[in-house]
């Protein structure tokens, strides 16, 4: 392996790793606030990428349809639970109206930036609605039930992806098509953009959790549900917001990666699992750790795929087991000293 190959692999790995890092951030956010390990996290990536593609080409806008469906189901749930008017009506009805508007205004060829924005918001809303419809009602059931629920969500969302967009692969325009050449190494602007976006999201999350009251409330709800409730923070609302932000971040990741690797209906699970491995390397509860872990997984995967082509994937998945074990041992050590 020459130096330039190694550098190339390193940059490729970092680009993919940035996507895993964004997924890891989303997973950690959800895990911290709700103790849910979200198997369906990667599906938000798929939804984000394919919805944005659909909005620019004017072809299939399944993500918006899904948002309408989710909004309708949510509205129905709220309607059945509370007959009197309350603020709780606002998110489902507002989103329902908005997505309907987008739907009837089509077919459209939105400029990419606007498409990204609409797709991100739509997926964030789908995330919130899925939390309200499937996770919150099972809050008492415990982590294993959550796992099976999110497995079901993964299946359902992936199937819907296939239904909406078919088995084809789609590309999305890059932010900037060019490349920087530096010392024999070519780095696309998109790669740099993906990396930059990852750190911007990390910084925004930090600002949100450290500098806003609502962010602090979310952290409180993550640490102690009962305690948070006693001081007037609703763990349910915290979970809702966590799912919305997390789904939004993942959708953004999908839009960012779509120009680099093609977007397909089944891209989600693999991305989500690698994001999870990265997050676990980083300790599963820390945001910077998730980013570093995701980047590390990306680089490792790039080199593994180059050296042992067929088994590159297997090596990354095989890493999950020792990493989890080391983590459990570390936690036990921590308790023992």
């Amino acid at each position, binding site marked *: 392996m020459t130096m330039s190959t190694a550098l190339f692999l390193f940059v490729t790995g970092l680009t993919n790793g940035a996507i895993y890092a964004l997924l890891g951030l989303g997973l950690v956010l959800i895990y911290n606030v709700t103790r849910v*390990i979200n*198997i369906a996290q990667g599906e938000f990536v798929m939804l984000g990428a394919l919805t944005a593609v659909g909005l620019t080409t004017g072809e299939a806008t399944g993500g918006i349809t899904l948002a309408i469906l989710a909004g309708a189901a949510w509205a129905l749930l709220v309607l059945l639970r509370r007959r009197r008017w309350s603020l709780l009506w606002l998110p489902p009805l507002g989103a329902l109206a908005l997505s309907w508007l987008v739907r009837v205004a089509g077919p459209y060829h939105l400029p990419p930036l606007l498409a990204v924005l609409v797709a991100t918001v739509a997926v964030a809303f789908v995330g919130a609605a899925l939390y309200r419809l*499937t996770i919150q*009602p*099972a809050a008492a*059931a415990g*982590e*294993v*039930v*959550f*796992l*099976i*629920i999110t*497995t*079901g*969500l*993964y*299946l*359902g*969302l*992936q*199937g*819907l992806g*296939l*239904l909406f967009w078919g088995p084809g692969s789609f590309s999305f325009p890059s932010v900037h098509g060019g490349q920087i050449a530096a010392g024999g190494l070519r780095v696309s602007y998109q790669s740099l953009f993906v990396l930059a976006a990852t750190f911007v999201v990390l910084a925004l999350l930090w600002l949100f959790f450290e500098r806003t009251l609502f962010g602090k409330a979310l952290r409180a709800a993550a640490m102690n549900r009962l305690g948070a409730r006693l001081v007037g923070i609703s763990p349910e609302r915290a979970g809702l917001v966590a799912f919305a932000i997390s789904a939004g971040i993942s959708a953004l990741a999908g839009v960012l990666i779509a120009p680099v690797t093609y977007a397909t209906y089944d891209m989600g*699970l693999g991305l989500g*699992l690698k994001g*999870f491995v990265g997050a676990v390397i980083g300790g599963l509860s820390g945001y910077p750790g998730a980013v570093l872990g995701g980047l590390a997984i990306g680089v490792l995967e790039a080199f593994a795929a180059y050296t042992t082509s*067929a*088994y590159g*994937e*297997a090596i990354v*998945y*095989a890493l*999950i*087991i*020792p990493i*989890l*074990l080391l*983590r*459990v041992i570390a936690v036990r050590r921590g*308790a*023992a*000293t």
Partner: protein
Amino acid sequence: MRPRSAALGLAGAALLVALPWLLPPFYANLLCFIAIYGGVATGLILLTGYAGLVSLGQGAFYGIGAYGAVVLAGSYGVDPWLSLLLGTLLAAAAGYLVGLPILRLSGHYLALATLAWGIIATILFTQLASITGGPNGFTNVPVLRLFGVDFIDPGRFYYLTLIFAVLAVLALASLIRSRAGRAVRAMRSSEFAAASVGMEVGRLKLQVFVLAAALAGLGGALFAYFIAFISPSAFDLGASIRLLTMAMIGGAHPLGGVLGAAVVTLLDDVLQNVIPNGSGQAGLVQVIAYGAILVGLMLASPRGLEPLLSRLWRVRFRSRPAAAAPPDAVPDAVPDAVPDAVPARAAGPGAAPATAPATVFGTAPDTPAERPQAPAGALLEVRELGRSFGGLQAVDGLGFRLRGGEILGLIGPNGAGKTTAFNVISGLLPPSQGRVLLGGDDVTGQPAQRMARRGLTRTFQNTALFDMSVLENVMAGCYVHTRGGVWAGVLGLGRADEARAEREARGALERVGLSELDARAPALPVGKQRLLEVARSLAMRPAVLLLDEPAAGLRYAEKRELAGLLGALRDEGLAILLVEHDMDLVMSVADRIVVMNYGKMLTEGAPEQVRQDPEVIAAYLGLDAA
């Protein structure tokens, strides 16, 4: 077995045998799939439903069994029948090798590790193309043939799959009501409590995991012979999720796996027929429907169909001695035990423990001799024991000796480190400093189940009971001095041990004055839960008993009865370490008292002496009062 259930069973068996004739030929195919998936899902129910270990990688073992069997038979000329066995063994071996590391994980970590394993296995099935045929699949599958009869026709193959499913269901039904099955269910409720009654939690998990892998392997092998062509996609993550869906639909019931398999398989069929084919959307809607069903099911009934099944079948864990042990299986050594046990149940809630016989276990005359003999010196000795959490020294320099036939009270204000001391002594936490000696042997840092096997057990401040009946909870306490592992449980061996355990459990329950034998333990009021924990500990025939606030939540009369019981146990030679906040109780029963404050030992002495110690008074009431 009662005549009616025997007749029902016979009718059911006849129906199962006659099914291929009763249904249109097309359904024979479905029946085969239901039976195969049903057997595999039955293993998964043991794993997920009873042991609480979620596997998202069961498709891997299913695939190893399938590839193992047909590759051996097709490429290496192994006899097809033998290859079924070898495929099963391969899957079991894989289960052992995979389970050994990953079963140290629990909860969703374990589920994710199995998910990763499933994906790795699919990659291997695809990449090892020279053996498995790669993505194109493996077609060279021979025919299963017995005495010139070919098993090709689904109507005939059905009987092979039926045998598999029935054996799997019977194995599970037999296992869960055995000693090992009780332990499997117990460790799901509380691993700490399971370890403190001497259950080898790690080994049990591994055995259950291997058993489930073996069932998946045999199912996979049958599947491969049935469809005569296999490719990696039949064993991928989708297959694992499908199997898990079946298990979740069924819930923790021996018949759950087959029922779940039937629901899912028939649903597939319906979906395929309802949705117009040709558009290629059938499989798609199926996947979405799976997702929706999985989510909907978890929300509607996290326990699956089990509550319904249990109500229909009433497969309850029997509490009548006659049912638990056929009369001829009762060992001669304790002929009077069964007659003793029956009135014990009839005595009703009013039975006072004060009237209990004077032996430790009332009904089993042979037990005191089997209890570890109290040596002349201290049974339990603790030297300079210390335990810190980060910077906090929760226990610091605790030391005492406890002889047989003695009650030592351990008191101190809240946060003094009493419960931490208990956790360290009973092996749930390793100590930071110091030594623990049990019967003169150094047992420092040994795990709780080893301590339990050496005759030391404990109760918990926040009761840690198993989610099963009261009687079964106490029978779980007999684990250390009965025999029969997972394999014995599967084969239904060890009935005599079970009968003996049940008698001892009844004796111990009578001793503490509990008569709600069939009630679910977690549903009892707190006071009775505490007494139940004491009974469970007694059923272990301990030499040293650690009681963590046994009187909390008890009413006055109950406390008096508890005090009487503790006195009687001491007189029988038991060494008791008692943490208790009810000073009247401690002062009245304890022979000596150790006082702790801020992790350190304040003083040790007779109750009278301690009561008047100014330091103790200061610790409890604040310095000014001294």
